[in-house]
Structure formats: C-alpha cells, structure tokens
C-alpha cells in the first residue's frame, strides 16, 4: 500500500502525491518512513527531505515545522519548502550574503528581526547543501 505525502507551507501546497517512502529531517535525526509506519508526530528541523517513488528520488529543502504520520498519510507542515530544481543557487548565495551582512551591521537588531535573519541563513545553507550534494 503506497503512502500519500503532503507538504504544505503557508504560501502553498508544495507537494502532494502517492510515494513509496520518504526520509524526513527531524529534531532527533533523520526518520525514514515506509508504509505501515506507526503513527508519529514530530518536529521537523531545517534539512533535506528525500522522497522515493519507483526508482526516482526527489530532494527537497524544508525548514522548520511539524510532520504527522497517521495511517498511510504523511503530512509535513513546514515554514519553508522548495524542490531541488526550483532552488536558484546564485539567488540563494546572494540572499545568504545579504542576510549575513545585515546581521553583522546591525548591533541592536530587534530580536524578531534577528531570529528571522537567522532562519534565513540556516535555510539558505540547507538549500545550497541540497543543490550541491552531487558535487
């Protein structure tokens, strides 16, 4: 029995399909999900999410959120998510530089802003890692 995977961010439903297995980056390491998995609710960390369908593997960068496995339904609730081919390496690198610059420049950044920048930097790192993993 195949799994159904749903990845939802505040902006859109990023992914929705039936799959064979998925590896989710969680707080306590990577968790591989196969059909018949025990119901699970866990926190998702910034990292690489791998979806296997047939003999194809799809890589996604996800950031911060929760995942729920209930029966044969896997739902990932992420703050950010992007598929590998959508990652624009140059744009990410520039964004990373800008964010790091902003963090260095402003000494008295308000904590919300700082947290936001930190998240951006972390997610940018993940995106680059996903994109460059073959090299």
């Amino acid at each position: 029995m195949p799994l159904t995977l749903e990845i939802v961010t505040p902006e859109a439903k990023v992914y929705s399909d039936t799959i064979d297995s998925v590896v989710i980056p969680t707080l306590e390491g990577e968790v591989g999900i196969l059909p018949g998995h025990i119901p699970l609710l866990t926190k998702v960390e910034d990292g690489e999410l791998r979806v296997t369908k047939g003999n194809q593997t799809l890589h996604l960068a996800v950031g911060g959120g929760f995942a729920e496995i209930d029966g044969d339904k896997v739902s990932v609730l992420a703050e950010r998510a992007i598929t590998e081919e959508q990652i624009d390496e140059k744009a990410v690198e520039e964004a990373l530089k800008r964010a790091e610059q902003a963090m260095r420049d402003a000494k008295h950044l308000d904590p919300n802003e700082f947290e936001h920048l930190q998240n951006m930097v972390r997610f940018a790192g993940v995106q680059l890692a996903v994109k460059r993993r073959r090299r």
Partner: protein
Amino acid sequence: MASTRDIRRRIKSVKNTRQITKAMELVAASKMKKAQQAALAGRPYTQLMASMLATLAHRVEESQHPFLVERPVRTRGILLVTTDKGLCGPLNANLFKLVTDIKSPAKFYVVGRKGAQFISRTKRDMVADFQVTDRVAFNEVKVAAEFMVKHFLEGIIDTIEVIYPRFKNTLVQEPTLRPVLPLANLQEFVGHAQAEAGHAKTADTREMLFEPNAQEVLEALLPFYVNRHLYQLVLSAKASEHSARMVAMKTAKDNATKLLGDLTLEYNKARQAAITQEILEIAAASFAA
C-alpha cells in the same frame, strides 16, 4: 427647470466622480485578487495544523498547557481587525455592531485605523493598536499575537477572541466573532474547520508516537498555531476589505453613470425647449410685423 448652464456644471462634476470611482475600483480589484490568493493559499496550512493539534490534544491532559485551560472569564481580550481607510461599504460598521453587542468587561486590541478611532470615540478600553501594511507580512501580525498571548498568560485578559470580516466570497463578508484562546473545545473546533474544508479525518486508534515527547511537541505547536491562526484571520480580513471596497466602488460608478444619463437627458430637453422657445418668438415677431 434648471438652466442649461447649471446642468452642464453638474454633468461635469458627476463625470469627475465617475472617473475617480472607476480608478479606485480598478485598484481595489487588483489588490483584491492578490489578497484573496493569499487568504486561500494559507488555508490548507492552517487546517493541517489544526488537525495535528487535534491528534495531539486528545492524547494529552488539558491541564498540561495554559492555552488549553479554561478559566473564569473576568476580562475578555478582543482583537478587532478593521481597515485603515474608509470607502468600503458597510464593512467596518458591521464589525462595530458586534463590538457594541459586547456588554461584559473587555479589553480591545485593534488592527487598522478605523477600528482605533471607533474604540477611542466610544471610550472603550483600548490596550494597543497595530498597523499592518496592505500586503500583510507574518511578522507584523506576530507582534500583535505575541503581545496578546503575553497578556493572556499574565492574566490581564482571560480569553483571546477576534472580531473580523470573514471572507466568504467577493460579494459576501460576514462579520464574525471567533474565539481563539483558550482552546478548550479543540475537538469541536477542528471538526468545524474540517467540515468547512469538506473532508473528515479517519481516526487512527493505534498508539501515537511523539518525538521528542508529547509535552514538548505541544509546547512548540501551540504558540505557533495561535500566531498562524491570527495571521490567517488578518489575511481573510484583508481579502474582505478589498472585495468590499471594489463592490462599493463599482456601485458608486454605476450610480454615477446612471445619473449622468439622466442629467444628459435633462440637459438636452432644456436645450430643445430653449430652441423651440426662440423659434416661437421669431415666428411671433414675424407675424406681428
């Protein structure tokens, strides 16, 4: 009958009005599209979060988190979401009716200038007012949400409720009072949200695993959920605002067009009457000669 000159002047002014309302309608229409998309795109996320929360909630004790505990309500905390600008039909007035109906002691937190003006004019207890831009960013709402949550935890307010115009479709916006905290009847709420989305969840009765543990997941999920939920409500309010404004401006434009037709008819009649009068006078004069 008014003189032709007066009518001409009125035609000119009505034409101006029509032009302005037409421009505003177009602006509102394009903003509406964006706002509606934003509101609709966020829905699956909030619903999924609610269903996760439900799975979690009936596996933990209610007393494990202050958000879940229902306590005697002395002061209600109400977030009133209104627009900054007027010219959007009865949208704000409908919300104010809901506010007027609240008789129990309450503290108000306001988004939007119109609401702030109303609350201070009617001398209600306003704690804070927040400004949000037209394309609402999550961080803007987060500030308001965290402020209210802080007051909730400190016991300054005992509930968090939101009054906002719920976006149903372009023509219909319902003024709604939506309780957010405490989340005492979570099951009921989730059922409601799912019925709205049109799918019910089949419950898995097996033992659920939580990582790292239920308490920690709950503590991470709940504040996150409240922030997101409030954000979604504000997005919905924005979509309502632009829809209401577009409809109001369209009506104004149509009225102006109709008035213009009537005035033009009247003007032509007056002109024709003047010409006929003149011919009559000339004819009479030539007969007399």
